[in-house]
C-alpha cells in the first residue's frame, strides 16, 4: 500500500495538538492592548512566534515518538522544530499582515501569510534530520496546509458569530482556527511526503510494524541500526546492532550493505544473508528480528 495512512493520521493529530497549544500560548496576548499599525505588527510577530513554536514542536516530536522512539532524537526534533517554527511563524504572519495592508483586506492575504507560516514550520522536520528531500516535502505540505487552514479561519469565525454569538465566534473562532490550521499543515506534510517519495521501507515485523520510513534519494548513505545517530533507527529489537547496516545510493539504485551485522534477503522461500545487494521493488529484508520491504518507484524494479 502506497499510502501510509498512519503517518498522515499521526501528523494530523500532532498538528491539531500543536495548534491547540499554540492557541493556549497566545491567550495572555488578549491583555495586550496595542493600537496602530506598529502594535498590530508587534502582536502578529508574537502570535506567529508562539503558534509556530507550538506547531513546530508538535510536528518535531514525530520522529522521536513514533519512528526512532529515542528520547535524544525526540529532544532534538522538538527543540529544532520549536526554533524553526518560532522564526518561521513570526515571519509568515508579518508578511501576511503586509500583504493584508497592501491589498486592503480579504481572505487571501491571511491565507498566504499562514501558507508561508506552514511552509517554514514544515521545513523543521527535514532540518532536524538534515534531509533536503524531507525539508522539501515538509515545506510543500505546510504551504498547502496553511493555504487551506488560513483561508478557512475567517469563514469559520464568521459562521460561529452568526450561529452562536459574536463573543463566542471571536474567542472560540481563534482556537478552532489554529486547530484547523495545525490539522491541515500536519496532515498535508504527511500526505505530500507519502505522495512524493520515490523509495521507502515498509516494516512488516517489529516495533514499527505497519509504518513506513522514507529513503532520502539525495543522501549517499543512510545507516540502519539501533543507534540514535542512524539515518533510520530500528527501535525495540535487541538483535539489531548499533550500526547494523547501511543503504547506499548508487546512481538511481539503492544498495543495502551490511555493516556491524548481517542483512537477510528473502529469496524464493527463505531469508539468506547477503553481502551487498542492489535493492529492487518489493525486496523483503530482515535485520535482527525486524523485517521490512523495500518499495520504490524506480524503473527497473520488479514492480
Amino acid at each position: 500500500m502506497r499510502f501510509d495512512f498512519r503517518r498522515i493520521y499521526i501528523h494530523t493529530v500532532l498538528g491539531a495538538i500543536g495548534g491547540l497549544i499554540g492557541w493556549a500560548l497566545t491567550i495572555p496576548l488578549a491583555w495586550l492592548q496595542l493600537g496602530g499599525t506598529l502594535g498590530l505588527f508587534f502582536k502578529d510577530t508574537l502570535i506567529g512566534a508562539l503558534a509556530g513554536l507550538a506547531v513546530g514542536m508538535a510536528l518535531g516530536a514525530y520522529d522521536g515518538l513514533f519512528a526512532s522512539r529515542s528520547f535524544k532524537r525526540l529532544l532534538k526534533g522538538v527543540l529544532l522544530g520549536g526554533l524553526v517554527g518560532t522564526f518561521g511563524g513570526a515571519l509568515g504572519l508579518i508578511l501576511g499582515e503586509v500583504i493584508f495592508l497592501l491589498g486592503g483586506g480579504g481572505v487571501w492575504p491571511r491565507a498566504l501569510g499562514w501558507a508561508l507560516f506552514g511552509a517554514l514550520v514544515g521545513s523543521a522536520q527535514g532540518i532536524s534530520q538534515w534531509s533536503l528531500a524531507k525539508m522539501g516535502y515538509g515545506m510543500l505540505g505546510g504551504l498547502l496546509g496553511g493555504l487551506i487552514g488560513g483561508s478557512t479561519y475567517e469563514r469559520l469565525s464568521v459562521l460561529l458569530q452568526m450561529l452562536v454569538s459574536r463573543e463566542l465566534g471571536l474567542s472560540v473562532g481563534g482556537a478552532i482556527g489554529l486547530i484547523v490550521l495545525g490539522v491541515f499543515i500536519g496532515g498535508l506534510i504527511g500526505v505530500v511526503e507519502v505522495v512524493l517519495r520515490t523509495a521507502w521501507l515498509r516494516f512488516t515485523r517489529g516495533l514499527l510494524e505497519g509504518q513506513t520510513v522514507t529513503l532520502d534519494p539525495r543522501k549517499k548513505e543512510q545507516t540502519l541500526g539501533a543507534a540514535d545517530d542512524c539515518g533510520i533507527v530500528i527501535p525495540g529489537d535487541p538483535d539489531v546492532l548499533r550500526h547494523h547496516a547501511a543503504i547506499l545510493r548508487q546512481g538511481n539504485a539503492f544498495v543495502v550493505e551490511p555493516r556491524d551485522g548481517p542483512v537477510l534477503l528473502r529469496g524464493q522461500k527463505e531469508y539468506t544473508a547477503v553481502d551487498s545487494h542492489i535493492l529492487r521493488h518489493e525486496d523483503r529484508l530482515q535485520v535482527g528480528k525486524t523485517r521490512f520491504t523495500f518499495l520504490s518507484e524506480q524503473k527497473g524494479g520488479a514492480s
Partner: protein
Amino acid sequence: MKRVLLLLLLFVCAITWACLMSIDFWQRQSVAAPGGIVAEVTYVDQAEFPDVTLYLDVRDESGQLVTGLAESAFSIREDGDVRDITAFIGSGDQPVTAVMLIDHSGSMADGQKMSDAIAAALAFLDELEDGRDSLGVIAFDDAFTVLGDLQVVDESARADLRTSISALQPDGGTSYYDAIYKATSMLKGVPGRKVVLALTDGDDTSSSRTNLGKMIDYVQDSNVVVFTIGLGADVRSAILEQVARETGGQYYEEPSGSDLAQLYTDIARSLQDEYSLTYRSPTPQSDGTTRQVDVVVKTSAGEAVAVGTYAVGGTFVPSLNVWSCAGSAVLLALAAAMLVAPGLYDRVRGRGQLAEAASEPALAPVPPPAPEPSPATPVAATCSACGEALRPGARFCRACGTPQALRDAPRAMVCANCGAALRPGARFCAKCGQRV
C-alpha cells in the same frame, strides 16, 4: 508521473478551497432600501479604529445633493449591530483637505486647455472657506513645482495661489504619477478625508521616481482618495479610471474644457456637503475581518441605505475565555488519546511484536556443520583482568566489563557454522549470517 499528478491535484484542491473561502457566502443582509433618495458612502476612515468615520453624500432622485440633514436622520449598524453616532458633521460644514494637481505640459498649449485649467483651479479655490479648508497646489510637467504647500486657506494664501496659478505656462513632458505621489506625501498623516484632484490631458510620459503600481500602493497606504480629471481628447481614460477606482475616487472626462470650471465647483461643493458620522466599532479586536456598515438615512423625501465596508488588519485574535480554556483542555486530552490509539490497537491485535524465536522459521535452515573443525577455530581467550573465558571476538569481558584488545582475540577465517570463507575482518558469515 503518477505522483506529479497527485501533487497537482493537491494544489488544485487547496487553491479551489481557498477561492471558495474567499467568497463571502454568508453575506450579511443589508436593510432594504425604500427609495426616494440615494445615499452613498464615499469614504470609510478607520485611522482611529475602533472609532470609525463614514463620509457619505445624500442625493435626491434628480441627483441634487440633499443638505441640511440633522444627526437624527442617520442610524448606523455594523454587521447588524446598531451603533451610537459619537461625532457628526453636517453638510456644508465639512472641512476639505485637498491637493490640486495642474498639468502644464507642452500639450496643454493646444486650444484653450491651459486657460481652462487655470480657470477651473481658481474656481475651486473660490469655493473653499477661509480658516476651515486646507489646500495645496502642485503644477507639473517633466518635474513638479509646489505652488503652495498644504495649508489652511486664508486671505494671503489665496492671493499667493492666484498669482502663481495664473502664471502657469505650458511646456515639457507629463510626470503624472510622480506628481500624484508628491501630492499624497503632502497629505500623508493628516487626519480625516484627504483628496487629490489630479488633472491631466495626456499619458504619463516622463515619471522617473515611481510607476503606476507603486503610486497606487502608496496612495492606498496613505488613505488618500484621488479624483482624476481627463482634459481633452488624448487622455488614456482606462488608466485614469483605474487610479480613481483603486483609490476610492472618481474619474471625470472633459473632452472640451468649457465645463471644467463648473466641474471643479461641483467637486468642491460635494466634498463640503458630505456628511460624516463617527461611531465606535462593536468588534474592537483586530481580527482581520471585513466589516459591513449600513447607514439608514431618513428624510421627508424618503429613505435610503448606504453600505460601506472596511477591513481591519490582524491575522488572528487571541482571547481570554474560561469556557474555551476548559474546552481546549478536553480537546487536548482527546487529541492525546487519538495519538496513542493506533499503538494501543496494535498491542491488542498483537502487531508490532517481534515473533518468538521458537516459532521463527525466518533464518535459513542451518547447513550441516563443517566436517572438520576449521583450523582457524578460535582458541578460548580469557579476560586480561579477571581471567573469565571470553566469547570469540568479544570486545568486553562478560564478567567484569574490562575492554579487551580486539587484536589479541583470534579471528576465524572460515565460518564455524557453514564453513564458507570469510572476508578479512568480517564479524559474521556472508553466506549463512552466523556471527563469527
